[in-house]
């Protein structure tokens, strides 16, 4: 029905929306040009004219304005700021730009008569730590009672000094710590301001659809990480970058198996939001949603998924904002339920001299041995293997691993981790240029990144170019074009579990240096006493690494075209067209010289695949932003918009085999070949609106709504509506509130809904697929998916409450609690077979995520020379499945979905150790009694893999030219089942084929032994290796993710003629350590089981030159 309404009156609808469309996009004050010519008008009159031009509102006390005084303003495109400085300074006034408000204040003491006291003049320049000029900083001579001056576009100022014997200047700037300098001569002074922690916390936060808000004005929940925070982190990929930085967001490995040397990560904002739709947040780069793989970040059409977030150059990023609650995400509607991550890239900073930054970093990496899974060496292995062999009742003379012409088992001791791991290296160089004029702002960057992984045979290279240009055509229209392109070269080799799994008594090469392809062992003893040797294939992946090919070449591009039109000073129209494209070419070749390239009958063949997968998302957003201030107290903002998104992916793949030699490789020259292709299209159309109102910086209200349509859903349910409401109260701005202790107290509460439509390809009308041998060799079609017209969106209802409190100047706590309930949860469920389908997606079930998260910022020390600040963040989430389809519980591997339980609840048989009498494995049955029988019916709901608390901690210490940064991430509580540990603790069963965990050394040997590992029995299953709580680990850990020491040198450009204005040297360590409280020396614990690969520790040296 809804759909019909849209289709019938589409055009009317657009008009309707436009008429209501009232909105403004905020521009930075520096960018607002003023063209005005006023002669001898009152100050108030000047203010009125300036308000009209700029969209800003003046706030002042009546008594401040010199009512009688006439002023003149002459400006032809000068910035608002400059005009204000020129206008206000002679009047003894100063101002603060506060979002869209200009607060006019009296300077501390009114000027007496400036001219008479003029004795000496001082000139100087005010810059920030990076030597960038600070425009509009206020310079005042202390105790002089004279008005101050503001710095100009180049940060320069000229100030008349008083006749006091000593002159102390103070420089202040929003967001910076006030600085004092003593002036004793005529030399120009350079004043460098340090960022103020407290003020920084009131940074401008990027919100949805072009909104910028001060943090203290936020109603919703948004956490922003700025460029400064990530500058020392590894730039290989974006998702991993945020680990431990954002309260409420967890970054974990997708798998604990050695399945991909470029592991996929699970990003979870406030818990698992869904069962079978995506639980991943939505990534939006410069306003345009980007493709980050399907619902588990898997990239279809390619055999190895390389995270698309590795295609973005982290150096180009200005800020990353994570939106968490309904008020900030509802406007993203159907895809906002798992949170939204907004990435804003650097843009031209407007006017100013061009600034060029050249930075380079080089590092080396080694695997962190402490996190490497420990397996037996040859001697230990042989001891255990022989023991298992005899335990199983076999005679030692028939032991398989006896020296022969092919294998010298007694002398071989290979540490396979050495074979597969080496020294990695990272190098990167980045050149960026930023600058602009009144009309044009630009940011250009070129970057090269190269990472040789510690896993040999793996290399990532990224060549990226970025260009962001804004052109102001006239006072009404401006145009922006953002382009970023990267070419990504990935050489791949995955040793899988070979690096710990291959027996240490095998060697990678034969005596003649060729790759080993066979092993010979004793299979048995013949009746006549002769030995029966067996020679078997050895699937040596070292040969595959050296002889095979596996690479991907990916072109990734983000292009963004923005047209901004200021209809009125309060109403701005923006039309944006964005494209996100990823085209990946994958090439694999298995050489004829090793088993991977041979047929089952061991005939050399060679296997080649050539795959091409293209992912294209285009987005068209048209919006009106409205911003109006009434009587300087009421602030009204609004957004109305229309968004159309099309996701398309296409791919082809060709395979060839039966090559004549290993040089050909191309499918077209293969003896035999086959091919396939795929394609998906999803389209979305959305209408959205937001209105917010604030009163006197005290009371805030935000309402928003979004109507979403999605082509994946049936016509009946294609459209859905989402909305939210939020209020906040800045208690500290109340007149009754007066506390020296509590500087800021803010309360907020929001509620709303959003959805989740990210299911993959789903067709509600039912589909038929084709089979070229359907009947009698003819092509026929059969139903592959039965119609499911009622399938619709998952909906999340999110309640969020928050309090922010700032004590003194140095302690800032931001705490939020939430309750997120997902209803109409989409799950693929058994359906009546009468429909012709087994399982279909259905909207069934409810789930809740409740928890809290927050951040605590503390500045421990802050003085002229030294500053030490800390940011802690923490989050706790409790997931509960509230309702499942017909209450049917569903075991999912080692987990279970059951009403009333966490979706991460383990479902396992309880391990009860080893029977000291005979070394047999013991379990508990369902009612808790000891049993020696493994029975799957004894599974119980066990612990949850969800941790109690996760988060991170960032320490910053600045001392003079030095700064130190330490980033830790941690997790407390939680239990993890290790597939990894299970595979290599086989108690004899798999001793023939797999090396074992060193924990196997603690096996039962004789009656009375209180052992951890059962009696080892060669090739005999006692079920002890089956899934049980034996392989569950507690997952508490702390990781030292990053430690950076920098030395910053700034040159005074007036003195330095080299053109170099700044230099920074950094020594950076990544992933320096991982600690868990359960470590045992020389044994494996969670620390070794955490992921399929050991952690990579790297140390790098960085240098950055700034020229302007």
């Amino acid at each position: 029905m809804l759909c019909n309404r849209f289709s019938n009156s589409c055009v009317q609808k657009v008009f309707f929306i436009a008429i209501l469309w009232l909105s403004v996009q905020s521009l930075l004050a520096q960018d607002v040009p003023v063209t005005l010519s006023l002669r001898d008008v009152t100050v108030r009159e000047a203010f009125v004219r300036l308000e009209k031009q700029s969209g800003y509102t003046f706030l002042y006390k009546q008594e401040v304005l010199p009512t009688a005084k006439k002023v003149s303003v002459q400006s032809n495109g000068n910035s608002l700021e400059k005009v204000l400085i020129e206008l206000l300074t002679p009047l003894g006034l100063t101002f603060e730009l506060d979002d869209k408000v200009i607060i006019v204040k009296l300077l501390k003491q009114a000027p007496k008569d400036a001219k008479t006291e003029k004795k000496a003049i001082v000139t100087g320049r005010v810059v920030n730590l990076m030597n960038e000029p600070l425009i509009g900083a206020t310079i005042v001579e202390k105790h002089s009672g004279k008005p101050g001056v503001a710095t100009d576009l180049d940060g320069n100022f000229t100030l008349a000094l008083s006749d006091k014997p000593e002159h102390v200047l103070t420089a202040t700037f929003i967001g910076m710590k006030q600085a004092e300098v003593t002036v004793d001569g005529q030399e120009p002074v350079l004043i460098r301001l340090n960022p103020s922690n407290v003020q920084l916390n009131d940074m401008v936060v990027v919100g949805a659809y072009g909104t910028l808000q001060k943090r203290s004005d936020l109603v919703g929940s948004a956490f922003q990480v700025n460029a400064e925070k990530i500058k020392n982190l590894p730039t290989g990929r974006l998702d991993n970058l945020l680990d431990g930085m954002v309260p409420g967001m967890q970054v974990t490995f997708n798998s604990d198996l050695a399945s991909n040397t470029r592991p996929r990560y699970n990003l979870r904002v406030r818990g698992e939001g869904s069962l079978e739709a995506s639980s991943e947040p939505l990534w939006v780069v410069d306003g345009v949603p980007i493709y980050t793989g399907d619902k588990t970040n898997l990239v279809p059409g390619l055999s190895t998924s390389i995270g698309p977030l590795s295609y973005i150059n982290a150096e180009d990023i200005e800020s990353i904002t994570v939106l968490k609650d309904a008020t900030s995400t509802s406007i993203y509607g159907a895809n906002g339920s798992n949170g939204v991550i907004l990435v804003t890239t650097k843009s031209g900073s407007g006017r100013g001299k061009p600034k060029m930054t050249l930075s380079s970093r080089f590092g080396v990496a080694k695997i962190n041995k402490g996190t490497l899974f420990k397996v037996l060496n040859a001697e230990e292995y042989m001891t255990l293997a022989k023991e298992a062999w005899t335990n199983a009742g076999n005679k030692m003379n028939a032991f398989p691993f006896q020296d022969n012409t092919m294998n010298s088992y007694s002398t071989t001791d290979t540490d396979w981790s050495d074979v597969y791991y080496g020294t990695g290296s990272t190098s990167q160089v980045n050149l960026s240029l930023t600058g602009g004029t009144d009309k044009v702002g630009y940011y250009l960057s070129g970057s090269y990144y190269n990472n040789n992984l510690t896993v040999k045979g793996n290399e990532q290279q990224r060549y990226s170019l970025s260009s962001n240009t804004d052109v102001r055509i006239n006072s009404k229209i401006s145009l922006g074009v953002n382009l970023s392109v990267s070419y990504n070269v990935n050489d791949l080799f995955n040793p899988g579990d070979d690096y710990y799994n291959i027996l240490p008594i095998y060697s990678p090469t034969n005596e003649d240096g060729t790759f080993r392809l066979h092993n010979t062992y004793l299979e048995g003893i013949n009746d006549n006493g002769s030995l029966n040797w067996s020679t078997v294939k050895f699937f040596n992946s070292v040969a595959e690494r050296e002889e095979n090919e596996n690479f991907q070449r990916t072109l990734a591009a983000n292009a963004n075209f923005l047209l901004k039109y200021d209809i009125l000073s309060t109403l701005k129209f923006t039309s944006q067209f964005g494209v996100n494209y990823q085209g990946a070419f994958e090439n694999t070749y298995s050489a004829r010289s090793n088993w991977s390239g041979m047929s089952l009958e061991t005939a050399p063949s060679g296997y080649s695949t050539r795959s091409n997968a293209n992912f294209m998302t285009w987005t068209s957003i048209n919006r009106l932003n409205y911003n109006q201030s009434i009587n300087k107290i009421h602030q009204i903002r609004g957004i109305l918009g229309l968004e159309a998104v099309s996701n398309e992916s296409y791919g082809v793949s060709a395979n060839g085999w039966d090559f004549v030699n290993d040089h050909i490789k191309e499918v077209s020259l293969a003896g035999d070949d086959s091919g396939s292709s795929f394609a998906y299209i999803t389209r979305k159309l959305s209408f959205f609106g937001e209105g917010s109102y604030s009163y006197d910086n005290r009371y805030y209200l935000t309402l928003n709504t979004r109507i979403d349509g999605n082509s994946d859903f049936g016509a009946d349910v294609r459209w859905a509506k989402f909305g939210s409401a939020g209020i906040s109260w800045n208690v500290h701005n109340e007149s009754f509130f007066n506390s020296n202790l509590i500087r800021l107290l803010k309360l907020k509460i929001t509620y709303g809904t959003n959805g989740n439509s990210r299911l993959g390809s789903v067709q509600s009308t039912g589909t038929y697929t084709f089979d070229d041998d359907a009947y009698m060799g003819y092509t026929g079609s059969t139903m592959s998916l039965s119609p499911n017209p009622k399938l619709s969106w998952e909906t999340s209802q999110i309640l969020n409450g928050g309090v922010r409190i700032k004590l003194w100047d140095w302690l800032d706590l931001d705490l939020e609690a939430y309750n997120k309930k997902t209803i109409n949860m989409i799950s693929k469920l058994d359906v009546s077979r009468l429909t012709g389908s087994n399982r279909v997606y259905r909207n069934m079930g409810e789930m809740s995520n409740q928890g809290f998260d927050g951040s605590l910022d503390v500045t421990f020390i802050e003085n002229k020379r030294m500053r030490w600040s800390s940011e802690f963040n923490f989050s706790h989430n409790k997931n509960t499945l509230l309702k499942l389809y017909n209450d049917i519980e569903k075991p999912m591997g080692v987990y279970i979905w059951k009403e009333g339980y966490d979706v991460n609840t383990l479902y396992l048989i309880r391990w009860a150790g080893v029977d000291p009498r005979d070394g047999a494995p013991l379990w508990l049955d369902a009612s808790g009694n000891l049993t020696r029988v493994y029975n799957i019916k004894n599974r119980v709901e066990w612990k949850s893999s969800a941790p109690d608390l996760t988060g991170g901690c960032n320490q910053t210490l600045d001392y003079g030219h030095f700064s130190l940064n330490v980033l830790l991430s941690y997790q407390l509580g939680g239990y993890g089942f290790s597939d990894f540990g299970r595979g290599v603790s086989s108690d004899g069963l798999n001793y023939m084929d797999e090396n074992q965990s060193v924990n196997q050394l603690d096996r039962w040997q004789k009656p009375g032994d209180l052992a951890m590992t059962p009696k080892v029995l060669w090739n005999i299953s006692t079920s002890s290796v089956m899934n049980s709580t034996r392989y569950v680990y507690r997952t508490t850990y702390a990781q030292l993710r990053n430690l950076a020491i920098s030395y910053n040198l700034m040159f005074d450009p007036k003195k330095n003629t080299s053109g170099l204005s700044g230099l920074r040297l950094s020594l950076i360590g990544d992933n320096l350590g991982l600690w868990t409280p359960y470590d045992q020396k020389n044994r494996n614990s969670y620390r070794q089981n955490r992921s399929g690969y050991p952690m990579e520790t790297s140390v790098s040296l960085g240098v950055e030159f700034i020229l302007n």
Partner: protein
Amino acid sequence: MISKYTKNKKVLLALCISGVFCTSCSDFLEVQPPGQTTIPVLFSDMDGMRSAVIGAYGTMFDYYSSEFYMYPEIAGNMVSLKAGATIENMLHEYNFISNPDDETLATGYIWKKIFSALTNVNNILEYQPSLMETFPEYTTELTKIRAQALFLRALCHFDVCLVYAQPYSYTSDATHLGVPVLTVTPGADDNVGRSSVQEVYTQIVKDLNDSQKAFGNTQMTDAWHASKTASQALLCRVSLYMGDWDETIRMADSVLQVVPLAYGQNYLDMYNNNEAGDEAIFRLNGYHKSSWFYTNFYAASSIKAVPADTLYNLFDPQDLRLSLIGQDANGGRFSLKYRNNSSVSDLEKHYDPFVLRASEMYLNRAEAWLNKGELGNATADLKILIARNLKKEVSEIFLPESNVDSLQLILRQERAKELCFEGHQFFDIVRWKQDLIRSAASTSVVKFLAYPNDRFVLPIPQTELEANHNMVGNPTVNY
């Protein structure tokens, strides 16, 4: 101050830019999934309809070439499972311990595969009328498609009812629990329940009569597709199951007017040499398809199901059909009905389950005559078959023409010998209201089950019961 006029003009301009993207909102969201076709689109033209018909035959083959076809053999008393047979080889059905959770065994698969075929057939019937309107020039073809689909629908209903419901004769008016009757494909939330057996058979008979009407005077062209003769033959069997002797005879008469018996080498070639056979009425073609009952049961490499002594001992040493029973070095016997000796490549060899053939029609008619007490007619039909099987003239065959019991025994034994390994045995036992009696040497733990018996039907799969709250299970086996 901006004048009202210019202000409006500017708003309008903004609108125009945004309007470009919204010329048709609903069209924008109509997307065809590439590589697949949505159901309404597939059935919008003749090509799609034709491919759906081919696909539907394919789904019929799928269920005929798997558990459904084996079940009446395994559950009967003429086939033994060898030691080493697993639950995938229908050990549960052999021992009558099938349970509702056997989702990936016979219990689940027979249900699933037949309904999968039925939905494909019903989709054809659902969209056929609109195509008739759109393409009147294809009326003849579309009518024939409808006729075939109606036959297939009847067959699906009949087959699924045999497995999951007690036989028609179980209650006097057949009002006991049957299976769902589906004439359109239900949606995920429709939850169709079970009809009575009588209602199921009413639908089957209606579909078969409609099918025959729709076929009109078209002649059977091959045995690989449904035909008027096939419809008549199925109705003959359905009538026999219903105890409608007159209809059984009438239908058998019609069929046997056009379909001869296969004799001698032609008879053997229809099993062993890729030939449909002279007497084939309807047979599903397995060209380029793997055959599950061949690979899992009768293959020389891993034979799991073999003729029981109870079967082998019935044969006269001269019987033509003994050529279809092989013997290995250890004296073990096995069926050769699914052994293709034709000189084509392995891919070209196919194993084609019989659905209907002329020999069965003689047996059906003989049984109907016998039940009507017309022993002479019954004897005549039996003689024709026996003569063919013993490679003799009809005049050389002598039967105890006046003894009903003897004749009935001969008929039942003849039926077992003729239709063994072709999906009839157990269904015949229960329809005759017989106890299941296996030889003492049977490898099954079940040697005897008395009729009536709750275990004579398979349980309704648990997943169906859970997903469809109108579904009820079968007594004992489900609870």
